[in-house]
């Protein structure tokens, strides 16, 4: 065993408490050997901190901004969407969200198995056990008893050497698609790449040669990670996530392109990594260790920002807020334009517009909303790279504007000259009603799932994990 052999080489005869197996999914097992990191990791359960735009509190985004319900009408996100919380909540949240519905057993429910990919260290374990293609196959409910530990040590660390590692095939494949080798990355780059396993835009490709039908997880980076490059990529492969319920546009959903946008910012350019801000060194007993309480750095300005910036905490927080407000202001205007676009397109269909009339308008809607979503979905973007995000928002406004003018002309030619009234979507309830979403039914379904299915999963998992045991490290004395 190499931990033991390395230990003998070491000047200090430290004792590891346990032997950690490869892909050990249970964080508390790792915690035996690394109590500081584990303790700080446990703090991601804390949901008290809230900042102007971020924090760990549970925030119902559809309530906060009911326009989202219209923008995502016809897609799962219009049922429920929340701000991210700490890594500890990854499993609870995916179970509780209305998007995953109320499976009643294996093979049921709206979501594919692939949804588990970024939620747990059980994922690399399972992929190793059953194969990657098999992991991605089937329904989300099929693997409910297998994936039970929230994001943790095995996602980022090699248990033998504790060095950082990449456990998600999608990132490795994305590098390959770009003609790069992820193994050539520096240690400093790895301090961001471990995050890039999950905090990135993705889609499910069901047409991969040889894997037809499997919703294979792919990062659309082949031609680059800019908003334009990914847009062109999706256009080329003719991909869409869903068809919008009102406008019938073939939509794209951008999911948290955190790494992509961060990479365009000044901090990335100066070699500052995700971990520098979100996992700053902290010290205890005169010794530095990496703070595993991954959270908003605004809850820990001293260790994150102030090592590099000598300004007061208040000044630094104000810098972040200023950028979020400046970008946010136009984001809101853009959302309103997008809401109008969908409704105006709906009106045009209603008045008898033809597919041909609508084609280029629907493309504009697709592109404008994609660009908007790319800018907001990663939550941190307006600080991570405010200039790039602003650029994207402006470009979205331009495209959206073009679409609206085409629509104004089309509607006029169909005899409709006025401005379509802006809908009353002042609350999530109103917006969901308008979009025909029956939340009561969805919630009922979810409750039944929680009552009947989850306990089964937990029990099965418990049995399985008990079988895994924990091996005490062999004493060398």
């Amino acid at each position: 065993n190499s931990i033991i052999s390395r230990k003998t080489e070491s000047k200090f005869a430290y004792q590891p408490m346990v032997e950690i197996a490869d892909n050990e999914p249970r964080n508390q097992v790792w915690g035996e050997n690394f109590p500081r990191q584990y303790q700080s990791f446990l703090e991601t359960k804390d949901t008290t901190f809230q900042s102007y735009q971020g924090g760990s509190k549970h925030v119902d985004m559809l309530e906060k901004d009911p326009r989202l319900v219209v923008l995502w009408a016809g897609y799962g996100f219009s049922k429920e969407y929340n701000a991210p919380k700490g890594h500890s909540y990854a499993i609870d949240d995916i179970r509780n969200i209305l998007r995953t519905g109320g499976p009643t057993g294996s093979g049921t429910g709206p979501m594919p198995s692939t949804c588990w990919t970024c939620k747990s260290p059980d994922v690399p374990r399972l992929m190793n056990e059953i194969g990657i293609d098999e992991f991605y196959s089937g329904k989300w409910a099929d693997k409910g008893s297998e994936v039970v530990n929230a994001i943790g040590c095995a996602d980022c660390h090699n248990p033998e050497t504790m060095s950082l590692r990449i456990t998600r095939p999608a990132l490795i494949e994305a590098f390959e698609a770009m003609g790069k080798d992820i193994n050539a990355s520096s240690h400093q780059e790895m301090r961001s790449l471990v995050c890039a396993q999950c905090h990135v835009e993705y889609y499910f490709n069901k047409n991969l040669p040889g894997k037809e039908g499997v919703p294979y997880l792919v990062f659309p980076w082949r031609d680059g990670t800019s908003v334009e490059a990914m847009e062109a990529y999706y256009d080329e492969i003719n991909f869409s996530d869903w068809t919008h319920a009102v406008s019938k546009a073939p939509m794209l959903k951008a999911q948290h392109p955190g790494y992509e946008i961060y990479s365009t910012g000044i901090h990335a350019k100066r070699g500052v990594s995700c971990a520098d801000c979100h996992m700053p060194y902290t010290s205890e007993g005169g010794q530095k260790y990496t703070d595993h309480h991954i959270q908003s750095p605004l809850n820990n300005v001293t260790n994150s920002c102030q090592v590099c910036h000598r300004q007061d905490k208040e000044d630094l927080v104000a810098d972040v807020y200023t950028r979020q407000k400046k970008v946010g202001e136009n984001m809101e205007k853009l959302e309103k334009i997008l809401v109008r676009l969908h409704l105006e397109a709906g009106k045009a269909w209603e008045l008898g517009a033809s597919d041909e009339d609508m084609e280029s308008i629907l493309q504009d809607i697709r592109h404008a909303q994609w660009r908007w979503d790319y800018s907001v979905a990663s939550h941190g973007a307006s600080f991570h790279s405010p200039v790039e995000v602003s650029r994207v928002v402006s470009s979205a406004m331009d495209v959206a504007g073009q679409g609206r003018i085409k629509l104004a002309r089309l509607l006029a030619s169909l005899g409709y000259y006025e401005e379509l009234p802006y809908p009353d979507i002042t609350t999530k309830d109103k917006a969901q009603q308008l979009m025909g979403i029956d939340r009561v039914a969805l919630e009922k379904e979810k409750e039944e799932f929680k009552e009947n299915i989850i306990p089964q999963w937990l029990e099965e998992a418990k049995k399985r994990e008990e079988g895994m045991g924990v091996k005490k490290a062999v004493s060398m004395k």
Partner: protein
Amino acid sequence: MNLLNKIVPPDQWIVPVTLLCGLMAGLGFYVLRVSNAVSYLSDDPKACINCHVMTPEYITWDHSSHQRVTVCNDCHVPHNNVVNKYYFKAMDGLYHASIYTLRLEPQAITMREPSQHVVQNNCIRCHIDQVTDAKMASWVDNHEENRTSRACWECHRETPHGRVKSLAAIGQFIEPLSVRQQQKEFVPDWIKKQLKSSK
């Protein structure tokens, strides 16, 4: 014997040669004195500010938390062995002196790569126990390398010299104008009068 005779100068040379040697030695001492060259061999930070271009660094260091615990040479010359220390100092001193006399110093001086390695190693020399965990070192691959290979001042950007490091960073050596003092009033009287009267 023969050989020795050849080397020993003829008697009539004794006076001029002695004088010449004395003169040269004197001149040498004079140069050493005005340039405070001897002090270069010491660890006194004042030695560095013989050259006024080192003043910003001196002042910033003097105000830093490291002032109590370090002198320039603790960071800027190698401490792995004595020979290396004086060799590096000599090379560095010669280099700095020639740049200075040739007036080639840039406005914003930056460390050259060899200096960077020297300083980095000195940070590590003092702080190794704080930046690395001996226990981790036994389990975590490359722990020491991971913790020490990145320039410390990428994060500790203000240690010890602050961030603005140029001759301009401090209010010295600007043209010594006797008139040069900033006034409290920035508006000339004639404008004040006119603006008041036109109200």
